[in-house]
């Protein structure tokens, strides 16, 4: 009775993630690194010293010199500018994939988990989707539509959706058996209301964790696709494209791969660390039971 009121709203998982003191040292460093990357990406057009596409035949493959702190590539383009600008598309694709797959997966998962008749059909379709490798799908889509950001996002999102659906469905399946959901049915609440107000909040915590994993793997997959030439068009700078071009001059100038690769690794590592920290915090088995 005399317990301090604890926020138990749907925002609780988010609030708890923001409460920094619960973070260990690793996740804190990861948070700082990730924030830096995001800030730099947001302000890239102002931070980049040069036009990332401007070629300069006289300045090919230079080491770090004045005006080009990370040197230049085989067309004389500024590496720093390319890495900074390239981050924009890489992150955009990652975030878009994470958001789209979580939202679509949430909706499909809710339907599959709550309506028994729909469950079998939806889950078999999801099993089918899961069998499509994203790289093959991307190559097919690029072959059909030409290289575009949309094709890449679609190619990475579609195989991610079933994973989110399974997660949401599992949460909904157990939550719908809770007596408070049955009480809501008895109180005459409509299906959409029960789904949104009683069941969705239960899925938020696992979805936040899953979202970070999707984000990390999407950035990585985008880089792989670009590297293989199945991603966005080769002249657009993304981390994958920069590395793909640098591959030819790897022996002469390893920085061409080193810097975008370093950014990519740092980015993925910090997202995953944060995801792990979020999972540890939100895992219901570690969570102190209310009451």
């Amino acid at each position, binding site marked *: 009775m005399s317990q301090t009121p604890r926020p*138990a709203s749907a925002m609780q998982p988010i609030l708890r993630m923001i409460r920094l003191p619960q973070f260990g040292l690793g996740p804190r460093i990861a948070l700082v690194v990730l924030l830096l990357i995001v800030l730099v990406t947001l302000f890239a057009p102002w931070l980049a010293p040069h036009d990332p596409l401007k070629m300069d035949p006289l300045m090919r493959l230079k080491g770090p010199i004045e005006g080009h702190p990370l040197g230049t590539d085989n067309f004389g383009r500024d590496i720093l500018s390319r890495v900074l600008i390239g981050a924009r598309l890489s992150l955009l694709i990652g975030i878009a994939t994470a958001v789209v797959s979580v939202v679509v997966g949430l909706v499909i998962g809710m339907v599959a988990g709550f309506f028994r008749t729909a469950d079998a059909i939806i889950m078999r379709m999801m099993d089918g989707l899961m069998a499509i490798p994203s790289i093959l799908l991307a190559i097919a889509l690029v072959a059909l539509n030409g290289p575009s950001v949309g094709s890449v996002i679609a190619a990475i999102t579609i195989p991610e959706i079933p994973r989110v659906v399974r997660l949401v469905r599992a949460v909904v399946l157990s939550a719908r058996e809770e007596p408070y959901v049955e*009480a809501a049915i008895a109180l005459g609440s409509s299906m959409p209301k029960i789904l949104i107000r009683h069941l969705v909040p239960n899925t938020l915590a696992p979805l936040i964790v899953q979202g970070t994993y999707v984000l990390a793997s999407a950035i990585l997959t985008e880089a792989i696709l670009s590297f293989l030439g199945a991603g966005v068009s080769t002249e657009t700078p993304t981390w994958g494209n920069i590395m793909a071009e640098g591959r030819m001059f790897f022996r002469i100038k390893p920085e061409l791969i080193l810097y975008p690769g370093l950014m990519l690794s740092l980015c993925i590592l910090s997202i995953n660390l944060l995801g792990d920290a979020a999972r540890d915090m939100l895992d219901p088995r570690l969570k102190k039971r209310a009451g």
Partner: protein
Amino acid sequence: MLFKSRNFDTAQVALSAENLVVDLPETPGRPQVLKGIDVTIRQGETVCLVGESGSGKSVTSLAIMGLLPQSLKVAQGRINLQGQNLLPLTQAQMRELRAARIAMIFQEPMTALNPVLRVGDQIMEVMELHTGLSAAERRARAIAIMEQVHLPDVPRIFQSYPHQLSGGQRQRIMIAMALVLEPVLLIADEPTTALDVTTQKQILSLIDELQSSHGTAVLFITHDMGVVAEIADTVYVMKHGEIVENGPVEAVLRNPRAEYTRKLLASVPGLTPRPSRPSEQEIVLKVDRLNKIYGSRGFLKKLPQAHAAKDVSFALARGRTLGIVGESGSGKSTVARCIMRLIDPSSGRIELDGQDIASLSRGRLWPHRKKLQVVFQDPMRSLNPRWTIAQSLIEGPLNYGTPRAEALAEAARLMGVVGLPKDALTRYPHQFSGGQRQRIAIARAVMMRPDVLVADEAVSALDVSVQAQVLDLLDQLQRDLGIAIVFITHDLRVAAQICDEVIVMQRGAVVEQGPAAEVLGAPAHAYTRALIEAAPGRDWDFQNFKAMNEVRDANPA
């Protein structure tokens, strides 16, 4: 002979706890969970530790076993097993001691047994760890102890996995594991709470029998006064980490000295059915030949069917209470869920105010929903933990178009009716105790002004004193609002307290039906008789501190 009245003054002391203090050293203020308790158990004696949840009875048993959780520490006192102080012993020494000299059985035998090992191997494993017997000797002893706990078809059960056995058989296996090494002390922590009454009776007599043949001292932890009356030699009543009273069972039940013991005994519901009330004529709920069959639809082959409710029929008038009693698997909850239309009945009629709702579609059912409300067993899970009490209470009225302000005013009024402060509305479920949450759940149902309230084991999870309060609340609401109640319970005492009529169910079928006084007072069916026979402590009138026959002799009807 009502109680055990053996004298143990000369028997050797098996275990004694002296001035035992257990506290939470990490928590500010070092709150004490056990505040200096003294317990003595002699050879061959059964000591019952009785108390409500949070009284410290389980902590006592864990302290004796040396299994206290990390956050709890023994701050003071001694625990002597046959004169040897256990507290200074190392983990390894305690491990040697457990099973060999102190054994324990738990409430839930399914979780206490390893689900992936055959039960015979699990009994043999105990001996493997603690004795030097050969495999053949271990097997022979395991089979011998399994026969002693009266398991049928021992060779088959020896080879079975826990899930293949019934709850009672699993508990027998636990007892066999506990006793196979002939321990000095057996600690039984609510070992029959999860079992049906008829099984409970068998397990209690089994523990009794083995105790007298092995001479084991038994520390029996329970919240059920009926069980105490059945099994105890000596009773210790605990409250908030203190022993408020102890003594021979008859003395405690007949002449309780402590106020708390009196209160506890007075809240044990009696088995005598309530006097019948004048019946109103207006029938609100009429169920006719209700059937529910599970698992009939197979995709390719016909799946095995389970007939969970067979031709259940009854009629319930306004302001009256119908009890549906039966053991687990009897189909009583299925009937409740069919009436609520949380599941769809396979056939039959459910008439609510003259309208058949058994086969209405979701949309057509909606206007009738508000007349039928439900209170569930588990007060921890029946309220959405993320919602304030106010949000939960007004959910239903908002669905049926009541303005928010009006619904909130009604919610505030009902908080007063169910005995909670007004500021409860802005708080969250985890800030309330189980009994308070159950009141909130009742208030939520009453918000809808229902004609029928279905209470599915609504007081089973509550302590006996809280249970009495919630039953009083239901009674009061029924008198004020004329609600008809369908009360599902496995507890005959509760049914006797509040029901006008009773239905007894067994394996989906109704075996007996009629006014409570007739069904419980003069049962016609063998199963009903067996249920009443099995009710622990049925010969003792706890509220009047007398034997039932003394009460009957005092005021002949």
